[in-house]
C-alpha cells in the first residue's frame, strides 16, 4: 500500500471566535481523514524541554471527513477571457510580442496563443524544445510548425512575431533583437546573430478547441487530473498583441520600432504598462485595443519589471511606466493552490485567544494546519504578535536541500525530514519560499499561505538550522506564557498590517516572536506609533524589522519582497527591479530606507551562525537601579547557558546596539553575549571593505546585545538580540535564568503606569570616589 500523506492549508491565518475557517486538504492513499481542533502549546521536541504539547478542544469537526487527491496549477501565465472568440477567428492574423526568455532551452514554452496541448488544436507562438522561436498550429489531427533558424539567446530582449494567412498557408516568422546598453544580459559587442526571418507555408489550418483559452505564457491541457495550463513560459514578456492581418516583414519592422499599438487592424494589444499606479500594479493586463480583452495574471506574474526599452536611468516603474512593461513569468510560481475545502470549521464563540490547528489524521499520517485566534474584544494586558509575514517569507524553504550556500551559512550538515524530501521529490511541490530560486534561477519574490506550508508545523525541525525555527520555536514563547498562566492574546502580522497601531493599542506589552524579519511599512508604522503612545515591546528575537515587504489589501495571503544589493540575501533582484509591484515601495532592507531596526528596538542584525549559541553576561548598565529590577533573583553569573536551539540563549541570528544606526541615545546595554565562533561572520551590510577577520572570534561587532530603553508615556522596549532566546525559556521546566529575566520584564511591562526604576534618573554623585 502506498504511503499515506496528508497536506493541507487554511484560507485564513487570523480568525476570531465565531468566525469560520476552511481547511483545504489533499491526501494520498486514503479517502477519509479524522479531524480535531487542537490548541498548540509547545512544539520543539528537543530533549530537555517539554516536548510536543497540544490540547484537544471539543468541536463539531471531530469526525471522519472525505478527502481526495487535489492537484496544483503551478506556473505564471495570463488568461484572456475571449468568450466571443475574437482572437481565434478564421481569418489572417499576426501574433507579436517583446520577449526576454530566461530558459529558452528547457522544453516547449508558449509565448502566446490559443493552443490545446492534448487536443493538438489551435495555434501558438512559442519556443520549441530546441530553443528556437516557433509558430505551431493544429487541427486536431495534424500539427505543423515553422521554426526560426537560430536559437534564442537567454536573457536578451527580442521582438518576435508570427503572421499567418489561411488562404495561402503562409507563415512569416519574425525575430529581431532589441538589445540596448542596459536591457539585456549581454552587451551589443557580442557577435551573435540574433536575427531570423523565415517565410514558409504550412499544410494545416488551425481549428482552435472551444474549451481552450487564449493564453499569454502558457497552453491549455486537459488530462485525467483536470484542466490545467502547461508549457509555461519562463522569462519576461513586454507589450504584445494580435492583429487581424498577416503582417509582412516591413510592417513588423514598423511595429517593432514604434513599440506602441498599431493604428489599425488591432484584435488585441496588451499595453503591459497600462493601469500602473504609484501605489502598485494589479494582476490585470490591460488590452487597450478596441475589443478590451483584458488578461488576468495567474500565480502573480511579476509586474513592473524592466521592459525592452528600459534606458537604465529610471530606477523604478514609478518613474517611467513606459519603460517598465516587463511581466516576468516563472514556470514554477505558485500563490494559491485553489483546492476545494475539505471541511469548514466555525470556531466556538468562547474560544480563548491562542495558537490553534486543525489536526488531520489517517493511519500513521498527520497534518496540522495552524491558525491564530485573536479575541473578539482584547482584554489581556499581554499580546503575543505572531510574525506571520516572516513565516510566509520562509514558507517551504528548500535551501538546505537546494542551495549550495546553506551548509556554509549554517555551519551544519543539512538534516531533512520525510516532508522535506517528499516536497523536493515532487519538484518543489508547494512552490518556493522567498529564499528559493525559480527554475530559471530568478529569486522568488512572492510567497503565499494559500498552500501547504511544511515548515509552519508544530513539530517541524528546519533542515538547514538543525532545529526549530520560527513557528515551532515561537511555540516555546506560547508555552512559557501558558506555564506562567499569563493572560495573553494572540495577534498576527496580518492584523497589524490591516489595522495599524489600533490593533496593538489595547495591550500593555507586545511580545514579538523569535524572528520577525519581514515588515511592511504599515507594520513598522504601527509598532512605532504604539511605542510612541506608551506601548511596550519585548523584542524576543533577532534580525527583525529587516526586509521591506508589501501586501495588496485584497490579498493578504500573498507577500512580496525584493532582495536588493545588501543584506543576507538568498538572491538579488535584477538591476532596475528594486520596487515592490504590490505597493510601489522600494524593497530591500529597512535600514536602507533610513529605518534601521535599531531605531525601534535598540538593536539590529549583526551576525548569524548555527554551530552553537552562547550565554549572555551582564553588563555594567544592568546594575543601574533603573534596570536592575530585570535581574532580580539572577545573581551575577551568565544567563542562558542552555537552550533547545543550539544549546544557548544567545545565538542563531544575533542583533547589536549601534548609535550610528539609530539606537536611542539613552538605551542601556544590560547584557551581551559571550564570544561566538568564526561561523558567525559580521553581516555584509556592515562591511564596506572586505578584510580577513570578520568572524566571531576576531570581530568585536559580532555579539548579541540585550538592551532596554524607555519611550514616551511610560513606553519601553526590551530587546534580547538573539533568536535562540525564546527556545531557552522552556529549559529546566521553565525554571531558569532566561525565564526569570523575561518574567521580571513581562511582569513589569504588563502593569500600567510608571515602569520600575523610572525614578532613578539622576547622575551619580561626584563626591562618591
Amino acid at each position, binding site marked *: 500500500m502506498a504511503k499515506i500523506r496528508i497536506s493541507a492549508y487554511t484560507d485564513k491565518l487570523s480568525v476570531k471566535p465565531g468566525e469560520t475557517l476552511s481547511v483545504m486538504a489533499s491526501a494520498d492513499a486514503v479517502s477519509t481523514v479524522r479531524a480535531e481542533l487542537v490548541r498548540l502549546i509547545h512544539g520543539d521536541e528537543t530533549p530537555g524541554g517539554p516536548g510536543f504539547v497540544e490540547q484537544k478542544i471539543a468541536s463539531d469537526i471531530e469526525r471522519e471527513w472525505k478527502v481526495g487527491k487535489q492537484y496544483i496549477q503551478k506556473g505564471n501565465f495570463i488568461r484572456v477571457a475571449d468568450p466571443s472568440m475574437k482572437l481565434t477567428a478564421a481569418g489572417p492574423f499576426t501574433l507579436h510580442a517583446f520577449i526576454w526568455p530566461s530558459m529558452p532551452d528547457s522544453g516547449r514554452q508558449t509565448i502566446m496563443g490559443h493552443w490545446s496541448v492534448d487536443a493538438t488544436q489551435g495555434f501558438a507562438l512559442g519556443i520549441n524544445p530546441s530553443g528556437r522561436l516557433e509558430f505551431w498550429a493544429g487541427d486536431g489531427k495534424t500539427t505543423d510548425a515553422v521554426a526560426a533558424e537560430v536559437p534564442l539567446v537567454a536573457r536578451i530582449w527580442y521582438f518576435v512575431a508570427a503572421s499567418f494567412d489561411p488562404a495561402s498557408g503562409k507563415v512569416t516568422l519574425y525575430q529581431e533583437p532589441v538589445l540596448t546598453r542596459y536591457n539585456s544580459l549581454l552587451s551589443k559587442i557580442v557577435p551573435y546573430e540574433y536575427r531570423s526571418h523565415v517565410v514558409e507555408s504550412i499544410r494545416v489550418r488551425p481549428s482552435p478547441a472551444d474549451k481552450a483559452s487564449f493564453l499569454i505564457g502558457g497552453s491549455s491541457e486537459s488530462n485525467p487530473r483536470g484542466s490545467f495550463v502547461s508549457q509555461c513560459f519562463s522569462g519576461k514578456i513586454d507589450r504584445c498583441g494580435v492583429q487581424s492581418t498577416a503582417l509582412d516583414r516591413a510592417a513588423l519592422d514598423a511595429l517593432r520600432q514604434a513599440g506602441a499599438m498599431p493604428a489599425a487592424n488591432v484584435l488585441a494589444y496588451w499595453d503591459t504598462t497600462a493601469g500602473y499606479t504609484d501605489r502598485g500594479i494589479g494582476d490585470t493586463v490591460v488590452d487597450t485595443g478596441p475589443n478590451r480583452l483584458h488578461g488576468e495574471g495567474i500565480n502573480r506574474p511579476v509586474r513592473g519589471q524592466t521592459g525592452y526599452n528600459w534606458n537604465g536611468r529610471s530606477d523604478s516603474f514609478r518613474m517611467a511606466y513606459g519603460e517598465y512593461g516587463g511581466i516576468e513569468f516563472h514556470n514554477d510560481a505558485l500563490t494559491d493552490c485553489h483546492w476545494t475545502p475539505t471541511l469548514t470549521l466555525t470556531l466556538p464563540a468562547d474560544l480563548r485567544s491562542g495558537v490553534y490547528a486543525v489536526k488531520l489524521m489517517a493511519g500513521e499520517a498527520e497534518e496540522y494546519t495552524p491558525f491564530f485566534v485573536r479575541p473578539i474584544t482584547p482584554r489581556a494586558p499581554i499580546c503575543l504578535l505572531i510574525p506571520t509575514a516572516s513565516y510566509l517569507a520562509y514558507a517551504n524553504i528548500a535551501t*538546505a536541500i537546494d542551495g549550495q550556500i546553506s551548509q556554509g551559512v549554517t555551519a551544519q550538515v543539512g538534516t531533512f525530514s520525510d516532508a522535506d524530501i517528499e516536497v523536493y521529490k515532487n519538484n518543489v511541490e508547494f512552490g518556493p519560499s522567498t529564499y528559493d530560486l525559480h527554475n530559471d534561477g530568478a529569486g522568488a519574490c512572492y510567497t503565499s499561505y494559500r498552500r501547504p506550508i511544511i515548515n509552519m508545523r508544530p513539530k517541524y525541525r528546519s533542515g538547514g538550522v538543525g532545529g526549530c525555527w520560527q513557528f515551532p520555536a515561537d511555540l516555546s514563547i506560547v508555552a512559557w506564557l501558558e506555564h506562567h498562566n499569563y493572560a495573553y492574546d494572540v495577534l498576527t502580522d496580518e492584523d497589524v498590517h490591516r489595522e495599524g497601531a489600533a490593533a496593538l493599542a489595547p495591550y500593555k506589552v507586545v511580545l514579538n516572536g523569535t524572528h520577525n524579519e519581514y515588515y511592511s511599512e504599515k507594520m513598522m508604522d504601527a509598532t512605532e506609533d504604539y511605542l510612541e503612545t506608551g506601548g511596550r515591546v519585548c523584542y524576543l528575537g533577532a534580525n527583525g524589522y529587516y526586509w521591506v515587504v508589501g501586501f495588496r489589501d485584497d490579498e493578504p495571503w500573498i507577500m512580496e519582497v525584493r532582495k536588493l544589493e545588501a543584506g543576507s540575501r538568498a538572491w538579488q533582484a535584477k538591476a532596475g527591479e528594486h520596487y515592490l509591484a504590490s505597493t510601489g515601495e522600494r524593497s530591500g532592507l529597512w535600514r536602507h530606507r533610513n529605518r534601521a531596526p535599531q531605531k525601534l528596538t535598540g538593536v539590529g542584525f549583526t551576525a548569524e551562525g548555527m554551530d552553537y549559541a552562547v550565554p549572555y553576561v551582564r553588563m555594567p548598565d544592568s546594575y543601574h537601579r533603573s534596570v536592575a529590577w530585570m535581574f532580580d533573583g539572577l545573581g551575577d553569573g551568565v544567563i542562558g547557558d542552555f537552550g533547545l536551539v543550539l*544549546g544557548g540563549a544567545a545565538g542563531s541570528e544575533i542583533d547589536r546596539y549601534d548609535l550610528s544606526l539609530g539606537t536611542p541615545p539613552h538605551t542601556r546595554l544590560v547584557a551581551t553575549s559571550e564570544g561566538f565562533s568564526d561561523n558567525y561572520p559580521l553581516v555584509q551590510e556592515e562591511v564596506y571593505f572586505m578584510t580577513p577577520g570578520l568572524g566571531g572570534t576576531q570581530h568585536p561587532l559580532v555579539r548579541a546585545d540585550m538592551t532596554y530603553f524607555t519611550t514616551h508615556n511610560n513606553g519601553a522596549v526590551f530587546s534580547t538580540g538573539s533568536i535562540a532566546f525564546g527556545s531557552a525559556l522552556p529549559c529546566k521546566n521553565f525554571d531558569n535564568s532566561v525565564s526569570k529575566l523575561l518574567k521580571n520584564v513581562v511582569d513589569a511591562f504588563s502593569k500600567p503606569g510608571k515602569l520600575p526604576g523610572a525614578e532613578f534618573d539622576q547622575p551619580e554623585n561626584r563626591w562618591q570616589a
Partner: protein
Amino acid sequence: MSTGQQSTPATPEIGLVGRSRLLPPLRAHGDRTWRRWRVPFTQRGALDYITAFNPISLVAERRIVDKRLLWWLAALLVLVIVPPLFGNDSFIGAGTTFAMFSAINIVWMLTIGTAGIFSLATLAVVGVGAYGTAYLSVYWGFPWWAMWIAGPFFGAGFGVLIALPAIRLEGFYYALLTVGVAELCRVWVVQSRTLGAANNGLYGADGFVPADMSTTGGITLGYFLALAMMVAALALYTYVNGQRLGRLLRAAPEKHEAFAEALGINYRAARIQVFLISSAALGFVGAFYATLLHGASPSLFTMDQLLLLLAMIVIGGIGTTEGAVAGTLIVVLLDKVFIGLGPLRLVLIGAIMLGTVLFLRGGIFGVAAQFKNWTAKRRSERRAVSRGKGGIVMPEEATEIHDKQNIAIGLFQLRLRGELKALVNDALIEEHRTTPRSRRSDNLERVLNYFRMAPMAEKYGVLMVKPFAEYRIVAISGRRGVPPRAVDDQMFTTPEDADHGVFLKRVQDLMES
C-alpha cells in the same frame, strides 16, 4: 612567478589544439528572409538544415544535418553516366543485375529492417511475380506492359500467404519457414511441365525491348529501366519508412511487441500492411525480370541466390538503403564482373561477409559510427588518465567546457585539497568527534569550510528518520525532483553522531581524491 610554496601538479605534454576549416561555412540567413521550401505533400524540405552558434566564434553556422540525399544524387549520376559510356555489354548487363538486386534489397529492407521481420522468402516473391507474369504472357499472350501491371498482384497475393504466419512465429522459426516456402516453390517450378520443367525455366514471354533495337541498345534500355526501378524502390522505402507506418513498425521491433501494444500500436496490422506493400513491389520486380529475360528461371528460388542476397545486405548493413545498395554493388561486382576468378570469387564474398560480421557492427555503413565511438572511448580514457594524474584539463577537453570558470575552480580545488589533506590527522578527527556545539580549532574549521561549500550534487546530508532516535546519511542529488539517496545503512541515534558520521565520510573522500 612561482613562490615555490605552491606546486602546480606536473603538467602532461600539452600540444596545440584548434582546427581550421577547408571550406567557408554556410552562414545563417540573418537579416535575409529565408523562404523555406518544402517537398510537396510533406512538412519538410529536401535537405534538413540546422543553424547553430559556433561556440568558438559565435558565428551562426548553417549545416546540412543529413547529407545522404547529396550522396545519393552523386551516386546516381555516376550510375547513369559510367556504365553506358565506359562499359561493354556484359558490364552494363551486370549493372542491370545490380540495379535489380538493389531494388529487391531496398524493398526487403522494409521488412527486415523497418519491420524487423526475418523473411527469407524475398526472392521467392520475386520468383512468383516472374513466373506468374511469364505464364500470363506465354499462355495468355499478355504484352510486357500488362505483365508489369500484373506483377504486383502476384507479389501481393503471395505476400498475404507468407504474411499470416509472421504474426505468430518468432524470428528464427519464421526465417526457417520462409526458406521452406522458397524451396517448395523451387521444387514446384522444377517439376511442373506447365512452368517449363523441361526447359529449365519458363521462357517465351514478351519483352520490353523493341524488336528493332540493337543488342547494346536493348541492354542499355534494360539497364536504365532497372535503374529507374531502383530509384522507385528508394522512393517507396523513404515514403513508407518515413511516414506513420514506418514509425509504428520501428516502435514495435521483435521482442518489444508487448510494449508497443501497451502504447496502443496495432503492430500486427502494421506488419501485414508492410508485407503487402513490399510483396507487391517485389512482384513488380519479378515482372520486370520476366520482361527483361523473356521468362523466369528456377534459380530465383535457389538457396545459393538467397545466400548471395543475404551477403549483400549483411555486408552493407541491415537497416539502411545505402547499405543495401553498396552491399549489392560489392557482391555483384565480384560475382558478375570478376567472373574470371571462378569459384574463388564466392570464397571472397564469403570472406568479406565474415569479416563484416566479425569486425563491424552494422555493415560497412556502420563504420563511421563505430569509428566515432571508438575515438570517443579512447578520448575519455585519455582524459581520465590526465585527470587522475593531477586534475589537468587538456586543451582539447577545454573546448567542450562552456563555463571556463569551472576549469579554474577545478584547479583551485585541487590546490586546496592538497593543503587540507596535510591538516587531516587522527587528532583532528578526534577533535571533531568531541567538540560538537563548541569552538573548534582553525585547522578543523578550514577543513569543515571546504566540506560545507561543496557543490550540491552528491553533497552529504542527514535524513532524520525519527527525531533524536534515528538518523542516516544521504547524498543530495543536486537536481529538483530527484530525492537524496541513502549512502549506506549506517544508523545514528543522535544528530551529533550523524554529523560526525558525515565528517568521516567527507574526510575519506578528501583523502582518496
